[in-house]
């Protein structure tokens, strides 16, 4: 991996209100030099507001933005050294690709020959140097976003901000460009904040994922931790699919329909609670024909996802999702009776039923 040369970015107690709506509620976040942090959350959770405050496109009501040790809270957007790729196509329609990429360099007083050379070099980095003389309207959406990325990188910014840059693209292009963004980010070693509502995107690309809700950071951690050890029921619900199954907490574990599962947080008081169980922790064991029991039910749907399939099982009072290898799922077509087993991985419980 190339040596990381980015700067540290700190958002300290950021606050932002729109009338009565609190968009950011005391948000603090530190991004290490060269790190890619993805902010993930539902619409209106404040992730884009955080990014816009960092870019200087909006003013904070309170708190500080510190980039590379320098307080830039009061600096306007054009005086912060930040590259940004937007959700909407943002290439200047009257300029060809290389002119778009060279625009930031022109603003910094770089001469024509030098900025053209550097623009072509950066276009080469995103694999589009042969489109240097094309207008935005002569390129596909994916190509436009790659040129936008080149334009943001051409000014050698201290920080790269990506505001849902893939959301307007179709699935195949999105996945390819996502990997390309990560490759370039690692190659350049730039500190990056990536905002998205697509959890798959965030988990695939980021060094750390921050899950936001109502202007606050619910959890910040490596993708694997956020997925497998969600800090709050909201994170468990938002990241990945979760079965909510009624159970009873007793001495550091939860009894769910006869199965005992350890808790992530053993300090939860005893009593009724909802266990949050991942579909991949649910498996189908044996034939449930002619049997009765709390974990025996009927398969009502099988969704083919490629290597795995998602099986929906009706237990009478609730439905439970199980994610299995497709070959295993094929043995249990819709209508068959099955018995469920719950893997004893530590789970979170939601005691606010």
């Amino acid at each position, binding site marked *: 991996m190339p040596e990381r040369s980015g700067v540290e970015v700190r958002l300290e107690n950021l606050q932002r209100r729109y009338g009565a709506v609190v968009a950011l509620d005391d948000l603090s976040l530190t991004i290490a030099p060269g790190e890619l942090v993805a902010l993930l959350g539902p619409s209106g959770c404040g992730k884009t507001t955080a990014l816009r405050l960092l*870019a200087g*496109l909006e003013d904070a009501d309170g708190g500080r933005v510190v980039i590379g040790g320098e307080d830039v809270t009061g600096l306007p957007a054009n005086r912060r050294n930040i*590259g940004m790729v937007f959700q909407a196509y943002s290439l200047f329609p009257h300029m060809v690709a290389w002119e778009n990429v060279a*625009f930031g360099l022109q603003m910094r007083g770089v001469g024509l020959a030098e900025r053209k050379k550097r623009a072509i070099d950066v276009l080469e980095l995103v694999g589009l140097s042969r489109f240097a003389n094309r*207008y935005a309207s*002569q390129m*596909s959406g994916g190509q436009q976003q790659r040129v936008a990325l080149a334009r*943001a990188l051409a000014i050698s910014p201290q920080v790269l901000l990506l505001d849902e840059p893939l959301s307007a693209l179709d699935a195949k292009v999105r996945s390819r460009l996502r990997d390309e963004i990560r490759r370039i980010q690692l190659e350049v070693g730039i500190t990056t904040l990536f905002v998205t509502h697509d959890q798959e995107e965030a988990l695939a690309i980021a060094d750390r994922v921050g899950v936001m809700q109502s202007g606050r950071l619910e959890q910040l951690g490596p993708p694997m931790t956020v997925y497998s050890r969600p800090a709050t029921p909201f994170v468990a619900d938002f990241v990945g699919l979760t079965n909510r199954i009624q159970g009873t907490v007793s001495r550091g574990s939860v009894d769910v329909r006869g199965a005992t599962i350890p808790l992530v947080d053993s300090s939860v008081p005893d009593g009724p609670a909802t266990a949050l169980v991942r579909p991949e922790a649910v498996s189908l064991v044996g034939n449930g024909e002619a049997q009765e029991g709390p974990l025996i039910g009927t398969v009502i749907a099988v969704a083919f996802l490629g290597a795995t399939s998602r099986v929906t099982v009706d237990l009478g009072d609730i439905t439970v999702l199980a994610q299995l290898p497709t070959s295993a799922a094929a043995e249990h077509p819709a209508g068959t009776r099955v018995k469920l087993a719950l893997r004893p991985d530590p789970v979170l419980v939601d005691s606010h039923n």
Partner: protein
Amino acid sequence: MAAVRRGVQGTRRLKLQVFRIIVFVAAGLFFLVPIGAMVEFSTRGVGDQPRTLAAWQSIGTYPDLVAAITASLELAAITTIAMLVLLVPTMVWVRLKLPRLNPIIEFICLLPLTIPAIVLVVGLFPIYNWMGTNFSDSILTLSIAYVVLVLPYAYRSLEAGLASIDVKTLTEAARSLGAGWFTVMWRIIVPNISSAILNSAFLSVALVLGEYTIANNLLYNNLQVEIAMLGRANAGVSIAVAVASLLFAFVVLVLLSFFNRGRGRLQLVELQQVMRTERG
């Protein structure tokens, strides 16, 4: 069966073609006959004398008329520039920072459309009276009233131009790359709404060159007032000037349509290239 269908379709196409030609000829006659009559009148000889261009040639010999033509052209230029300087930044700013004010700005800009010019004069008269005494009584001060007069037409045209681009994203992209507000306006917004700016400029020029009521009632002699006055003394010259001003407006319109057609052709080429890229 297919031959019959082709025959029916061919007949339909022919009928449509004939209809188009009839409409085109009728519209052409509607516009050209009055202008032809004006040209015929302005070149008519006295009594039995043959046709002459004397009226056209004598346009330059009327000092008041030349002064009025100059003043109207200056007014057209000042009004257009003032309107653009006032309207373009305001509309962009409102879109970016105060979108809730957009309906109010639209209402204010469209208001002059609902007020007859003669009513406008009643309101303007005391202001011009005061300006004449304390500031200047130059005919060029009419440009203030004319900016108000052209607002509705210019607003509509510029609004259409701004709606065709993503002003907010383009502005923020340019700002994040280091551009100040003036650079954003001059290097990013203006080039992308150039057609709308040209359209609004043309409408302003056409309106100012054809304006009579306000100038006449505020006692200024612009082109139209001078044409009306000249019509009483020498109808031939008056009509020649009217035709000349129509031709001037026509030339501006043709130039504008050529510019827009060039852009349209460019967009078609761009579209074809994208389709080739997508196929590739």
